[in-house]
C-alpha cells in the first residue's frame, strides 16, 4: 500500500481500526453503545478510558511540551473520528484540549509542561470561562481572585462548563482587578485534588437538548486558595490568553461538525439506498439524490475550509483571528443546515429515537446543535468578522497576500511550519491572505483548468470585490452593530470558503488527484466545481437555472458527484476529497 496522500489520515486509519466498526454493537466505542448512554444521560466513562489507553490525549498536547502534536491537523482528525461516533465522547474527552490550550498559547514553558504532564497522564482539565449571568460577555465576569497570602483567594461561580464536575484541574478565568477591563482578568489553574472536597463545590449537571451524557455543569468557589504558581501566564493577561486560545479551539471545533456531518450523511445515504418510494430506490429519485449530493458538497466545503484553517494555525497565525471566526461561524451553521436538509429525506426516521439504527439520526441532530452555541456562538463570531471589516477591505483593495504562507496552509502534502503562539494576534493586521490573493491567483490559473471552474472562480472574485466594497463602506461601531453588517459578514464568510476551496485544489491537485481512491473527485476538478457552484449559489441566490441558484446547468455538477459519494460510502471511506479508509461495515 502506498503512502496516503494525506499524512494525518494515517493516524485516523490507525485509531479507526483500533476502535473498529462503529456499527458493531459489541465494540466499546459503537454507535449503539453511545446511543444507549445518551438515553441514560450517562457519561461515557469507559469509552474515555479506552481513548486514554489508545493515547488520544497526546494529540491535545504540542510536541514541544511532550505531546504528539506536530500539526494541529492531528488534533482535528482525532476529534473528528470521535465525533463520527459520538459527540458526547468527542466533547467529553476532547474538552481537555480546551482546558490546556491556554497553557499552549499563554504560559511559560515550565508551566506549559506541567499542564502537559497533567493531560498526558490522563488528567481531565476543564476551561471555566462563562458565568450564569454573562455568557459570552467575558469582561462582565464576576468570579474574583483577590491577592492573599502570596497567592489568591477565589470566589464566585462558573456555569455551563464542560467537565466542571469530572475535571481534576480547572483553568479558570477570574477578575483580578476589581475595575475589570481587558487587563483586569487572569487565568488560574485550580487543582481540585489540592483544594480538597471542601475547597470548591460542583453545581448540578444541566439537562441539555443533546450530548445528554456530557458533564455540563458548573463550579463554585468560596474563598478557595490558589498559589502564586497557579497563575497561568502574566497577571492581567487572562483575557488576551483566552482570546488567543479561542482562536485555536474555534478552528479545531470544526472537527465536531465534520464528524457529525459524516455520520448524518452516512445514515441518510444508507437509508436512500435501502428505502423505496414510488417503486424506486430513494437514491434513484433525482430530488432525494440532489439532497445527498448537496449535503456532500457542503461537507467537502466544510472540510477543506477546516483543513486550511487548521494548517493556518501554523502558517498564518497572525490572520487566525479572522479565519477562526470564519470557521466557527460557517462550519457548525452549515452542518446544522446539512443535517436538517438530510432529515427531510429521512422522513419519520429523522425523529424516531428507537434503539436501532433508525434512532441514530435524531441523536446526531440534537448533539450537533451544541457546536454552534458553545465556545463562542454564531453572533460572537460574526461580530469578530465585522470588527475586521476595515482592515479586510483595505488589504483586499491592495491585493495584499502572503502567498508563501497561504501555500504552506493549503498544501497538505508538506508538514506545516512549527506553531508559534507569539505570532497570534487579537486583530489581524494583514487581513486574510487566503481571499486577498485570490484575484491574482484566478487571473493566472494553470493551463488545463476546466473552463467551468475558471468561470466560477472568476465569478467568486467578482462577488468578493463587491462584498469588500460594501465592507469598506461600513462605519465601525462599538456596540450598536447594524443587522446589515451581519448579513455582509455572512457573505464575506462565503467568499473565504470559496477561496479555501480554490487554494486547496491548486496546491493538491497533482498529488491528491493521483490517488486512485479519490481520482474521480479530482478528475476535471469535479469537487471544486461543485463547491464553487454551491458557494456562488449561496452568494447570489437567484431563480434556479439562471445565474446563481443551482448554477447555469441546473446543478448537473451535483449529479456527477453522486457516483463518488456512493463509492466512498460503499467502499468504507471517509467522505473527503482525500482517501481515508474506515472500519465501517461495507454495505
Amino acid at each position: 500500500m502506498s503512502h496516503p496522500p494525506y499524512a494525518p489520515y494515517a493516524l485516523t486509519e490507525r485509531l479507526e481500526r483500533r476502535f473498529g466498526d462503529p456499527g458493531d454493537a459489541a465494540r466499546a466505542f459503537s454507535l449503539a453503545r453511545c446511543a444507549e448512554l445518551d438515553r441514560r444521560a450517562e457519561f461515557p466513562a469507559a469509552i474515555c478510558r479506552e481513548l486514554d489507553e489508545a493515547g488520544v490525549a497526546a494529540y491535545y498536547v504540542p510536541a514541544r511540551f511532550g505531546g504528539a502534536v506536530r500539526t494541529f491537523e492531528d488534533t482535528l482528525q482525532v476529534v473528528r473520528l470521535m465525533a463520527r461516533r459520538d459527540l458526547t465522547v468527542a466533547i467529553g474527552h476532547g474538552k481537555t484540549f480546551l482546558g490546556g490550550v491556554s497553557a499552549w498559547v499563554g504560559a511559560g514553558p515550565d508551566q506549559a509542561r506541567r499542564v502537559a504532564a497533567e493531560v498526558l497522564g490522563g488528567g481531565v482539565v476543564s476551561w471555566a470561562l462563562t458565568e450564569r449571568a454573562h455568557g459570552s460577555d467575558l469582561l462582565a465576569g464576576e468570579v474574583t481572585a483577590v491577592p492573599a497570602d502570596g497567592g489568591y483567594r477565589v470566589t464566585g461561580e462558573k456555569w455551563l462548563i464542560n467537565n466542571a464536575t469530572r475535571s481534576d484541574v480547572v483553568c479558570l478565568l477570574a477578575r483580578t482587578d476589581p475595575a475589570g477591563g481587558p487587563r483586569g482578568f487572569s487565568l488560574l489553574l485550580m487543582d481540585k485534588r489540592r483544594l480538597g472536597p471542601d475547597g470548591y463545590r460542583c453545581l448540578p449537571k444541566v439537562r441539555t437538548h443533546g450530548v445528554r451524557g456530557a458533564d455540563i455543569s458548573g463550579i463554585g468557589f468560596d474563598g478557595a486558595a490558589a498559589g502564586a504558581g497557579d497563575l497561568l501566564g502574566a497577571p492581567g493577561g487572562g483575557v488576551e490568553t483566552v482570546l488567543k486560545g479561542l482562536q485555536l479551539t474555534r478552528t479545531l471545533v470544526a472537527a465536531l461538525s465534520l464528524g457529525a456531518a459524516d455520520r448524518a450523511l452516512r445514515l441518510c445515504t444508507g437509508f436512500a439506498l435501502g428505502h423505496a418510494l414510488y417503486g424506486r430506490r430513494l437514491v434513484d429519485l433525482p430530488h432525494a439524490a440532489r439532497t445527498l449530493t448537496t449535503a456532500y458538497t457542503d461537507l467537502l466545503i466544510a472540510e477543506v475550509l477546516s483543513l486550511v484553517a487548521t494548517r493556518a494555525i501554523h502558517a498564518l497565525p497572525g490572520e487566525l483571528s479572522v479565519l477562526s471566526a470564519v470557521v466557527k461561524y460557517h462550519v457548525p451553521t452549515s452542518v446544522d443546515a446539512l443535517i436538517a436538509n438530510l432529515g427531510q429525506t429521512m422522513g419519520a426516521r429523522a425523529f424516531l429515537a428507537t434503539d436501532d439504527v433508525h434512532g441514530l439520526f435524531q441523536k446526531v441532530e440534537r448533539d450537533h446543535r451544541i457546536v454552534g452555541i458553545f465556545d463562542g456562538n454564531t453572533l460572537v463570531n460574526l461580530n469578530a468578522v465585522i470588527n475586521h471589516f476595515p482592515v479586510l477591505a483595505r488589504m483586499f483593495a491592495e491585493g495584499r497576500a502572503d502567498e508563501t504562507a497561504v501555500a504552506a496552509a493549503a498544501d497538505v502534502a508538506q508538514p506545516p511550519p512549527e506553531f508559534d503562539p507569539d505570532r497570534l494576534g487579537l486583530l489581524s493586521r494583514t487581513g486574510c491572505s487566503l481571499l486577498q490573493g485570490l484575484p491574482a491567483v484566478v487571473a493566472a490559473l494553470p493551463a488545463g483548468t476546466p473552463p467551468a471552474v475558471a468561470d466560477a472562480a472568476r465569478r467568486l472574485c467578482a462577488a468578493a470585490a463587491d462584498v469588500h466594497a460594501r465592507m469598506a463602506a461600513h462605519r465601525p461601531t462599538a456596540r450598536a452593530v447594524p443587522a446589515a453588517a451581519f448579513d455582509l459578514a455572512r457573505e464575506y464568510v462565503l467568499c473565504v470558503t470559496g477561496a479555501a476551496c480554490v487554494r486547496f485544489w491548486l496546491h493538491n491537485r497533482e498529488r491528491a488527484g493521483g490517488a486512485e481512491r479519490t481520482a474521480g473527485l479530482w478528475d476535471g476538478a469535479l469537487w471544486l466545481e461543485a463547491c464553487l457552484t454551491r458557494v456562488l449559489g449561496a452568494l447570489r441566490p437567484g431563480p434556479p437555472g439562471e445565474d446563481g441558484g443551482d448554477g447555469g446547468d441546473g446543478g448537473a455538477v451535483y449529479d456527477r458527484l453522486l457516483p463518488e459519494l456512493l463509492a466512498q460510502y460503499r467502499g468504507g471511506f471517509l467522505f473527503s476529497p482525500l482517501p481515508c479508509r474506515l472500519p465501517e461495515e461495507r454495505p
Partner: protein
Amino acid sequence: MTHAIAAPADRADRADQTGPAGLEARLGDPLDPANPLGHAAVVAADERGEILAAGEEMLDACGLNAEFVPRSLGGRFERADRLAETVRAVFRRDVTLGLGYGITNFVAAAPVWASGDAGQRAWLARLLLGNRRAAAAYTELRHGNDFTRNELTALPAAPGFVVDGRKELVNNAERADAVVLFARTGDGPGSRSHSHLLVDMTALPAGRRRYLPRFPTAGVRGCLLGGIEFAGCPVPGDALLGERGGAMETVLKAFQVTRAVLPGVVVGALDTQLRTALSFAGRRVLYGGTVADLPNARSALAGAFLDLLVCDALSTVGARALHLCPAETSVLTAAVKYLVPKILREASYDLSVLVGARSYLREGPYAIFEKMMRDLPLVTFAHANAAVCQATIIPQLPRLAARGWPRAEPPPDALFDLGAGLPPLDFGRLAINARGADGLSAMLAVAADDADPRVAASAARLAAELARLRRRCRDLPARDRTVLASRAAFDLCERYIVLLAAAACIGVRRNGTGFRAEPDWLVGALARLEARLGRRERVPADIEARLTAELSARFDDHLTFDLYARRLAG
C-alpha cells in the same frame, strides 16, 4: 360495530368556555410554576415522556373534541380557520397535548366526515363527543408517505374482511376506540387498490390484534405513538368507509382539510418561542445593555414576528379556501403544509441563535423554548412531508401556467376577510386536482397597483416572478411531471408556493381591519418572502422599528403575535 344514531348532548352551554379565548383562560398563566398547565408542568411531563394528564382533563372538561365534529352531527366544527385558531391555543402551550389529544382525532375523523355514511358519521361523532379517541392508522414505516404501496391487507371474507399486517407510528393506537385503517383491498399497483375501514376496536377479538410498543421520538415525547398488528383479524363488512378502492381519493380530499389546519395550529408553537425569546432578550445583559438593545437581535425578533404573520396568513387563507374555492385547494393546502412548517422551523432556528446556550437547556426559565424546538420538526414530517406536498403541486404546474396564471380572476374578498362568515365546508366539493385553476396568485397583479408604493413595487416584482415561472412551467420537461421530477422542478414549485404566501398576505391586508389593515407588516412580510426568492434587501429599517414596537406592545399586553392579537392568560 353498530352505528346507532343517538342525539349527542347539547353542548351550547359550554360554548362560552370554548373557542380560543375560553381555552386560553382555562390554560392559565404559563409562567406560574404552580399552574398544573403551565410551562414548568409541560416541560416536566415531557421529561417523563408523558402527555400532560392535567391538560387532558381540562380538554375533556371543555369538550375540545367537539371542535372536530361538524355542527350537523352535534359538534362545533363549522369553519376550518376557526378550528385552527382555537386549537392553536393548545399548541401555544404544549405541542404534545395539541397533537396527542386533539389534532390526531381530527385527522382520523376527516375521512369519516368526507366519505362515511350517516351511521358511521354519527357513531364517530358520538364517540368523540363522549371524550373518547380515534386513531388514524396509515403509516407503514417501510413505505413512508407512499400510501399506494401500503401492504396491510383487508381481504373480503364473509361477513366482512380479514385484516393482516401492521400500522406504525399511530398516535394513541392503544387508547383509541375507533381506528381509521388504510388497507389494501386489491392486488393492483395503482391508486384504486386501497380502502378505508372504520374499525370499532372494542369489538375486535383481542387475540387477532396486538398493540406494538411505543415508538420513542425526539420531539413530542409524551405522544403515545404506537402501532397495531393484525393477524387474521375479522372486521365486519359495515366497517368499509366510502367506496371500496376509494381510499386514495378520499385521502386526497379529506387531508386537504387537515393539511390546512395542522400548520395553522402549529403557528402557536412559534408564538411561544418568540415570546420566550423576547423575555430572554429583555432580561439578558450583554456588553453593557440588554440583548433586546442590539440591532441584530431586534432584527431577528421582528423577522420571526413577520414569519409568524406570513404563516398565519397563508394557513388561514388556505383554511378559508376550503369553504370558498374547494376546486383549487389541492394545490393551496399542499402549499400551506409545505411552506408553513418550513418557515416555522427556520424561524425557530434563527431564534435559537439569539437565545444561545439557553436554547439548548431542558431546564430553567427558558426550557419551553427547547421543548418547542424539538417538537416542531415532528409536525413537519407528520401528515405528509415536504416532498409529498410538492409532488402534489409539481405535476399541476404546466396546467396552472397555461390556464390559471394568465387570466385568473382574483378570489372573493371573503377569502381574506377574517371576520366574514363562510359557507359550509363541503368535503364532496374538494377537488383532487385544480385543473389549472388558481385565483389566489392573481392578487399579485392586483397589489401591483397598490396605493402604497412600497407594496406596489414589491408586488410588481412578485408578479414578474409569476410571469417568469409561467414561462418555465408551461414547458416543464416531461420527466418533471413524473415521480422522477428534478430538483429544478421542486425549486420552481417552491418559488410558486412563496408567491402564494405573498398573495395571501396581500389579500389579508386589503381586507383587514386594525393592525391587519396597516401596510407596514405587509411590506415587511413581502420583504421576508422576497428574500426566499433570492432578493437581498433587508426589511426596511422604519418598518422594522414599527414592528418591534408592535411586538413589544403585544408582549407587554399579553396579546398573541398572530393576525388576531388575542388576549392571553397570565
